[in-house]
């Protein structure tokens, strides 16, 4: 996007989406930017009287696919709703990007930043403009099963120029909670890396709403100057409300509201029901803030004094090597039993340490897995923490893509984490398995199998697409073409071949994985063929894959791609053993390539009936050749025996001839000299 700003200095033509919206790269709208998407003015070719703007999503960050489709479909009035979206040729960057068209909020953003100090709002303003304005949107999203997960001051807009009617900002261009400051996230969610947070529930949105109210009422960023990690520690120690409110003086009503929305126990936190009662003016009995049990004596982890289980789990996750000794030793279980009187936690810890691979296996990875399990057993609601990573159980999609783009975390460690079955362990630690947890557990089992499969179309690449359904194809061959669906793949490949980006094989592991993930009816043997060591089988597999796509999605003509396969056609022709067939195919190839159809080329080069016949007759020819070779061998063996055989036969023949002459001479003489 920085590149975009640079390129905007020159004249840039407008970009069209769906023949209706004209996106104007020359007119950026800084007040409507999202953290990972730049905003631009849009001209609507239909005269609806409504003003629109476009967010051009940064291709590095996948959009929330399900949310994008759903929110566009249901058109929620109190949420910044996508009217249309799709890939466009984004000329400023010289690539394709996802463009999302929104109705333009006339009043602009609530606040430019979450960090600025403002004039405190009155209670009435907060109740009327924030609570009454945003609650319908939050409720509507909850009804659709899509929490917003981006409620913060710089993501709230005013629909009207008078800045009275608020609306929730963009929730589709970024993963859930991706840009939320730690203050606006619950303790559990804040502990996860921002790009690996959970999709969450409406309870997370209500928590963020509570923090927003607190901010507007106090005029100061909640949590003050505390750094994110320190803020989380304080929230754990003192509770969210106490830390975020600080010394802010609130009215009883507002304190009741904020305390209710900021209760750390999700089951105790206010819901829509309590909020509506509060808005109606009914006052509720304030719920006391219940903090986690605190030990009288601290337990030290790597120099850190911990008084609660959650703090110990957090310290263990940070302590790395020392943590392995601590969880294996008797001190921690003893402390849990004696200082916290929590025998169940001690038993759970012992079981978690003994779970998985045995302690004898040793090694840093083993220790890290053991510490991760121990932390999960102590604090089951916290994210999965492994070797510096902190990932929500449903946040692996964002974590993988960010690690892949070099944005944070390590792909290798994430793979280790998945292969160690830590997500499944986390789900087991949740006590009674909820239906969605059972589904997740099965999903992770399947993903582990996918990860361990080394064939093209599986492995890490497949995992990325399985965990990020809205992610475009990341293959270097077509990444800049933003292939968002299967129908876009072949045209993108065609352009890549024309542009000289592809000179050899047009299918790599990413393309195979993208197709395997996106296609509903897919033959896995094609993937096996693509990974085959034999170049002919590999090329045939690729041709099958792309041919199948052409049948399902078109286009009818792919001349450059067909010509590219034409370069590899000879190795496919050479699979036929019969020379006459090879010559015939070679002669007809040019005409087939001229058609520009992969399907036709596939039928021509890989006709199963013809190949079957060729194989059958070839096998017969080999057998006949072998028989002839054997007969020739026999002839040579017979030649060795000729002198011996000739001697035997010749002596008999000679004796026979002699005897005939002898008899003739006797009879002749008898007739000649006898007086008859």
């Amino acid at each position, binding site marked *: 996007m920085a590149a975009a700003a640079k390129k905007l200095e020159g004249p840039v033509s407008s970009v069209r989406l769906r023949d209706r919206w004209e996106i104007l790269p020359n007119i950026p709208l800084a007040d409507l930017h999202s953290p990972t998407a730049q905003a631009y003015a849009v001209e609507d070719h239909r005269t609806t009287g409504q003003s629109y703007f476009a967010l051009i999503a940064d291709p590095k960050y996948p959009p929330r696919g399900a949310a994008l489709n759903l929110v566009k479909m249901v058109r929620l009035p109190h949420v910044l709703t996508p009217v249309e979206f799709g890939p466009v040729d984004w000329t400023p960057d010289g690539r394709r990007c996802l463009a999302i068209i929104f109705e333009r909020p006339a009043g602009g953003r609530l606040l430019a930043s979450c960090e600025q100090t403002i004039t405190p709002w009155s209670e009435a303003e907060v109740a009327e403009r924030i609570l009454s304005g945003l609650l319908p949107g939050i409720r509507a999203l909850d009804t659709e099963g899509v929490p917003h997960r981006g409620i913060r001051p710089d993501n709230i807009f005013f629909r009207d120029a008078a800045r009275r009617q608020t609306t929730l900002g963009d929730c589709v261009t970024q993963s859930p909670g991706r840009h939320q400051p730690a203050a606006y996230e619950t303790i559990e969610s804040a502990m996860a890396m921002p790009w690996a947070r959970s999709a969450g529930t409406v309870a997370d949105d209500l928590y963020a709403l509570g923090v927003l109210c607190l901010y507007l009422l106090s005029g100061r960023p909640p949590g003050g100057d505390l750094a994110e990690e320190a803020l989380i520690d304080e929230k754990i120690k003192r509770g969210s409300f106490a830390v975020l409110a600080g010394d802010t003086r609130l009215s009883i009503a507002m304190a009741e509201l904020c305390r209710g929305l900021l209760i750390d126990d999700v089951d105790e936190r206010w819901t829509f029901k309590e909020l509506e009662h509060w808005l109606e003016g009914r006052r509720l009995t304030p719920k006391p803030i219940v903090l986690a049990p605190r030990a009288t004596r601290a337990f030290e982890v790597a120099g850190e004094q911990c008084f609660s289980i959650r703090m110990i789990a957090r310290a263990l996750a940070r302590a790395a090597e020392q943590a392995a000794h601590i969880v294996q030793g008797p001190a921690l279980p003893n402390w849990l039993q004696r200082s916290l009187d929590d025998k169940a936690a001690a038993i759970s810890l012992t079981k978690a340490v003994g779970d998985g691979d045995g302690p004898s296996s040793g090694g840093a990875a083993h220790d890290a897995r053991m510490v991760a399990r121990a932390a999960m057993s102590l604090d089951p609601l916290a994210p999965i923490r492994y070797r510096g990573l902190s990932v929500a159980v449903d946040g692996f999609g964002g974590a993988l893509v960010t690690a892949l783009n070099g944005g944070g975390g390590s792909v290798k460690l994430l793979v280790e984490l998945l292969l160690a079955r830590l997500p499944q362990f986390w789900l087991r630690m949740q006590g009674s398995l909820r239906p969605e947890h059972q589904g997740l557990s099965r999903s992770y089992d399947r993903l582990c199998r996918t990860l361990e499969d080394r064939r093209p179309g599986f492995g890490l690449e497949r995992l990325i697409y399985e965990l990020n359904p809205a992610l475009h194809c990341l293959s270097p061959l077509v990444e800049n073409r933003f292939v968002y669906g299967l129908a876009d793949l072949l045209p993108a490949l065609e352009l890549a071949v024309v542009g000289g980006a592809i000179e050899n094989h047009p299918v790599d592991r990413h393309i195979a994985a993208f197709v395997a993930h996106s296609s509903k009816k897919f033959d896995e043997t094609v993937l096996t063929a693509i990974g085959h060591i034999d170049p002919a089988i590999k090329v045939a597999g690729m041709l099958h894959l792309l041919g199948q796509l052409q049948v399902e999605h078109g286009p009818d003509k792919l001349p450059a791609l067909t010509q590219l396969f034409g370069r590899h056609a000879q190795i496919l022709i050479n699979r036929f053993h019969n*020379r006459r067939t090879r010559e015939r195919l070679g002669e007809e190839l040019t005409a087939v390539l001229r058609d520009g159809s992969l399907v036709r080329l596939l039928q021509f080069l890989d006709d199963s009936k013809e190949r079957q016949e060729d194989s059958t007759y070839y096998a017969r020819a080999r057998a006949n*050749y072998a028989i002839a070779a054997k007969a020739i061998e026999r002839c040579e063996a017979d030649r060795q025996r000729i002198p011996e055989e000739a001697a035997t036969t010749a002596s008999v023949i000679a004796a026979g001839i002699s005897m005939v002459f*002898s008899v003739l*001479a*006797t009879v002749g003489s008898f007739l*000649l*000299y006898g007086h008859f």
Partner: protein
Amino acid sequence: MAKPPTAAGKPLAPAKAKPRASTKAKPAKPKRQTSLLGPFIFTTILVLLAVTAMPICILLIAGMIPTITAYAVDQTERRMLTLTVGALNLAGVVPFCMQLWFSADPMQGLTQLITQPWVWMVMYMAAGIGWLLHFGMPVAVAIVLEQSLDVRKSKYVSIQKRLKEEWGDDVALVTVPEE
């Protein structure tokens, strides 16, 4: 030290057993069967002939000397050299024997015959042809057999050539199937 296993996993046989095995394998030379029947018959005929027709007996013995030589030389079991030489030698001697048998004075006839060189030439050349036939025939037979084998082999070679033309050189890259 353990004996190295064979392909079948069994230890190899000791090396000293080899010479014994080769001795065993060598076929024993067949002992010549000395039969007295032949010489007995031959002697009986000769005695009878000497008693009844002395001149013929003398001519026969003198004329068949090459056959007697061949019999002495031929040590084979089937005595094919003796048979070949003997039969043709007899063919050379029999006309003169017949001449004596049907003549009025055989003794005078014998005197006339043995004094003429061409008689000896006929009898001994016939035996010589026998010798030539015995030693020349194997060469002729070998040539015929070679020719027959060449025809047979060229038929298979042409089949292989045709298969290679149609299927390429790879058609030859196969293991010869067991019959």
